[in-house]
């Protein structure tokens, strides 16, 4: 990379709320917030857990679009404020937006009484980012990524790349996925949702718990503070094994992690900790651990995952988990894999069971998704 790329500002809204101090305190205490969500739309009498935002639409009295935009705009505004951007810097901002559900949460409630709402009213995948640009008077180009659970991780990767190449001075990167019936019922149809507790990498893991949230970061060439995190590199690749699952041997996943490390110019031995994708599904965890062992061999760094705290926020997890992980590290700790109790010998990877004290370092962040998409990012700070 020609230019260093720093996280200049950030904000998040997730099941643990939007206050960074409270989120960090909750993560230190291993607290999560899970709500049972009924499957009554299809006449079933059971529910499944979901990590919902503390305040729901029904609490606000807002319509779907107003609620959707309020969360999005609040998160972006807080990221801009955190970065201390001047109005002319905001005006020039390009927008990188990543999401799995895009605008479906806005429209799907209308299907209770109508049909083909999306075909008649959706303005396309790119519309959310363009409307953000209009509301915030951001005149930079808009880039919307829709690569399932790696969507906003790809936004981060490409934004960092374009800044590093000098094509952009700074960028807003947003990951946003609100609860959607389509996603919730779809994942349940695949039998991927587990009852609590959520325990990725555990021998008794049974699947994922979904979450909703929004994360926003301002990436910039200028270092905002001595302990600011930099995006050092990353990689994207496609595992063509299957549209739903990666190669269980983990070969392509390992390849993407290796490419990310090479792109960042670091060797595996310099990685202080790994934030695994760690969805908690039986096969995904097996595949990721097989890949991790190929990259790190017997020198496995501490490994953790963040989904037990906030749920799997699908396409938004790229930015949200970057924000939470980097903020925790800036606060001097790497959170443990909450919920984990019993190692699985078949995985060969035992995640952190207690917080790890850190004072800076280089970290690897993994994200994988349907469609074989794999993204690994390397970040670091030098405190």
């Amino acid at each position, binding site marked *: 990379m020609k230019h260093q790329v720093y996280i200049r500002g950030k904000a998040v809204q997730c099941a643990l709320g939007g206050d960074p101090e409270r989120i960090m305190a909750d993560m230190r205490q291993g607290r999560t917030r899970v709500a049972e969500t009924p499957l009554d739309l299809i006449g079933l009498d059971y529910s499944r857990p979901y990590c919902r935002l503390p305040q729901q639409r029904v609490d606000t009295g807002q319509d779907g679009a107003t609620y959707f935009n309020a969360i999005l705009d609040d998160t972006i505004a807080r990221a801009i404020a955190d970065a201390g951007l001047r109005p002319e810097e905001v005006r020039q901002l390009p927008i990188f937006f990543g999401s799995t559900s895009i605008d479906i949460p806005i429209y799907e409630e209308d299907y209770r009484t109508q049909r083909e709402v*999306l075909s008649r009213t959706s303005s396309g995948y790119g519309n959310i980012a363009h409307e953000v640009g209009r509301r915030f008077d951001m005149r930079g180009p808009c880039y919307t990524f*829709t690569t399932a659970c790696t969507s906003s991780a790809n936004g981060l990767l490409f934004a960092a790349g374009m800044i590093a190449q000098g094509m952009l001075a700074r960028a807003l990167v947003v990951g946003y996925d609100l609860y959607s019936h389509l996603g919730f019922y779809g994942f349940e149809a695949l039998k991927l949702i587990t009852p609590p507790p959520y325990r990725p990498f555990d021998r008794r893991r049974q699947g994922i718990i979904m979450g909703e949230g929004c994360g926003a970061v301002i990436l910039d060439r200028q270092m905002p503070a001595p302990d600011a995190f930099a995006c050092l590199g990353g990689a994207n690749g496609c595992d063509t094994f299957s549209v739903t699952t990666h190669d269980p041997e983990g070969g392509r996943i390992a390849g993407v992690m290796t490419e990310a490390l090479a792109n960042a110019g670091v060797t595996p031995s310099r990685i202080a900790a790994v934030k695994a994708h760690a969805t908690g599904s039986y096969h995904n965890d097996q595949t990721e651990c097989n890949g991790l062992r190929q990259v790190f061999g017997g020198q496995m760094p501490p490994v953790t995952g963040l989904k037990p705290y906030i749920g799997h926020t699908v396409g938004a997890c790229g930015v949200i988990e970057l924000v939470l992980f980097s903020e925790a590290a800036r606060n001097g700790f790497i959170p443990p894999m909450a919920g984990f109790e019993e190692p699985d010998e078949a995985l060969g990877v035992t995640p952190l069971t207690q917080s790890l004290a850190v004072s800076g370092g280089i970290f690897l962040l993994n994200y994988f998704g349907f469609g074989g998409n794999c993204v690994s990012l390397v970040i670091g700070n030098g405190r």
Partner: protein
Amino acid sequence: MMHIHGHGSFVGPPVADVKAIKAEVSRYTRIHFRRANRFVLIALAGACRCVQGHDPAPATAIYLTTENGNLGDTETVLNQIFHKHEFPMPYNFINTMSNTASFYVAQSLGLPGRNVTFSSKQLSFERGLELAFCDMAMGGIQSALIGGADEACFSRDQFEAKFQLPYGQYEMVEGSSWLLLRRTAQGALGALRPPATFESAAAAAAWIGRQALPDTVHLSYGILPNAADRETIGQALADAVPMDYIAERGYFDSATACGVTHFLEQGATGCLVHVNKDFRDQLVLLVVEKY
């Protein structure tokens, strides 16, 4: 500069039964796409045509640009949940994620490299090219397959509300158009310059005046540049040959990609200047040179 080594397009009026598209795809690949839907198939058909005879390197990156993605399966799944009151069928649900199309392109062509499904409204193809330019500049990729794919728009109301243009003036088509790009000029049939963005037609016209262009320039427009934009740009390229690919090929939301491949398919020499615009009045110019 990225060099064009191949191009291919599968664009036409929508057919009710996707069997015809499956038959087209099966001409190029032995993989049986039993679960593939319309969007996946139209993406595959164009990509397969593009790379035929080119044997792209396994590390070739794939950038699938689209405005609407898998509309059909998303409608199906929402109908299953809200009206049939049943779980979505697993493959309908998986196919709501539009990157299944870029996955199947990768799988059928044996390309496990970079893979992105991407959108930017009317400028999806142009912005996708920017991503490819960035990746090539970083040295991360040596070759790329980039395409634009969309299903046809059947809603008169939606089209007219969106574009403020008469629906009946356009033939609605669907499909995908692709380019095979490489860093090397050796064996290339043309080249692409990095897309250039402007806040006004006057700024775009001034930029055109500073470019070294071949003697023969073809000029085409996306659907949104208005009469004033065309007047201003037209004055800067007074001798340009008009190329109205939307009139010739029909309209779909990935029309820019179709415009580029349409130019490359013609016997014309020189270069194409393609002018496009989004709803925020950003103009993007694309210069395509044919060797």
